[in-house]
Every structure is written in structure tokens, then in C-alpha cells.
């Protein structure tokens, strides 16, 4: 149990997927102008990362390894994640218009999100069990959601502040992200 807690803290704070490993920079910059959008993106990413991590883990150990085709893990995971996103989008369209309204629009963006694929591959590389893989995926998603939400609140404040012309938009956002990464480095050595 303590190992799972350590894993959670390690992956959500110390080895944050965005600020420490530089995955998912695209949604960090693209969907962080409004905090509401950022939060909805975080929810959608959390759902897809956790479900895809569980499915890819099961597929790797129950199908790819027994068949001796584990070298196909990358292309398998890409196709499984893309198919999963299509299925989830369709499922939400049919069953829950409210959730679709909040989350559905972000799902196509997640198909090309490297964090989802990165987590699936990292779980296999690290040799996690199914439970550990699920906890790791959840921890990574929480880390992503926290960072993108904090980043969006800072960007909202930057919008109403005076910023030199050359720094407006993406440049000041990247500087902000760099400062956040420095702050996050303070967690190093926590676990």
C-alpha cells in the first residue's frame, strides 16, 4: 500500500509528466487559455489515460507476450488508444449529452496526446503490475490536471497584465512554464 502511495506522489509531483518529462506540451499551450477548458481537458485526459493504461497492460501481457509479438507494442498501443477514444466519444454521444458537452470536444485532441501513449509504454518498460499501472496512470493524470489548471490560471492573469509586445502569447507562456518547472523541481528527493 505504501509502495502505491510512493508511486502516486512520485509520478504526480516529483516526476511530473509535463514539467519534468515534457510530455503533453501541446495541450498545455493549446487548451490553457481558460481555466474551465483546462479543467475539462484534465478530466478527459485522466479518464482516457487510466482506461488506456489498463487495456494496454492487459493486451501486452495477455496477447502480445504469449504470441511472441511484443515488438509490436508501439503500433498496437497507438491503434488501441485511437480506437478507445473513438469508442468513448461515440458512447458519450449516445448516453450522456451533458458529459459529452463538457468533455467530448477534447477527446479528438487526446488521440494525438503523447502523454497517453507515453504512460502506456512507460508502464510496460517499468514492469508494473496491473494495479501499479492503474495507479501510475492515475497519478500521471492528476499531475497533468494540476499543472494545466495552475498554468491556465496564470495565463488568465497574464491576459490582463501588461506584457512587452515581443513576449505576448506563447513566449511568456513558455517562460511561465519554465518557472513552474523550476518550482516543481523543489519536490525532487521527496520520495
Amino acid at each position: 500500500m505504501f509502495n502505491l502511495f510512493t508511486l502516486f506522489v512520485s509520478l504526480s509531483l516529483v516526476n511530473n509528466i509535463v514539467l519534468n518529462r515534457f510530455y503533453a506540451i501541446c495541450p498545455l499551450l493549446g487548451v490553457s487559455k481558460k481555466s474551465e477548458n483546462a479543467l475539462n481537458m484534465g478530466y478527459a485526459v485522466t479518464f482516457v489515460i487510466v482506461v488506456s493504461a489498463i487495456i494496454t497492460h492487459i493486451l501486452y501481457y495477455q496477447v502480445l507476450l504469449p504470441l511472441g509479438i511484443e515488438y509490436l507494442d508501439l503500433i498496437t498501443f497507438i491503434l488501441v488508444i485511437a480506437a478507445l477514444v473513438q469508442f468513448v466519444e461515440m458512447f458519450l454521444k449516445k448516453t450522456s449529452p451533458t458529459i459529452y458537452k463538457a468533455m467530448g470536444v477534447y477527446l479528438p485532441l487526446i488521440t494525438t496526446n503523447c502523454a497517453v501513449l507515453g504512460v502506456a509504454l512507460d508502464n510496460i518498460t517499468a514492469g508494473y503490475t496491473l494495479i501499479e499501472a492503474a495507479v501510475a496512470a492515475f497519478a500521471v493524470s492528476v499531475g497533468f490536471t494540476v499543472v494545466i489548471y495552475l498554468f491556465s490560471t496564470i495565463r488568465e492573469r497574464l491576459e490582463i497584465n501588461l506584457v512587452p509586445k515581443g513576449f505576448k502569447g506563447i513566449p511568456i507562456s513558455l517562460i511561465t512554464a519554465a518557472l513552474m518547472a523550476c518550482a516543481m523541481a523543489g519536490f525532487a528527493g521527496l520520495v
Partner: protein
Amino acid sequence: MEACIWLVGLLFLYIGLYIWNKKTPKPEGCQNITIGCDGCQLYDCTHNHVHKEGESN
């Protein structure tokens, strides 16, 4: 041989789900929801806001 069957199966699964998803109508009030990602200047990307503006015109 197993590898080919596995890959073809996955491809068909993805294509099938993609077509099924596209044919499923969006719920009421969700037809025109777009977020227009502006994270980069890659205009080839279909999520770029340029495409969203083009669709609405």
C-alpha cells in the same frame, strides 16, 4: 503471421469504430462546439483554429 493478423484486426477495429463514431449524431446543442487549439502554428493539424474558422464561414 500472427503479427499480420493482429495488425489487420486492430486496423479494422479502429476503422470500424471511427466510421461508427462519425455516423453517430451529436446530441442537441453540441453541433457547433469547438475549442480551436492554438498551441502551435502547425496549420496542417486539423485541430488548428484556422480550420475551425474555415468551417464556420
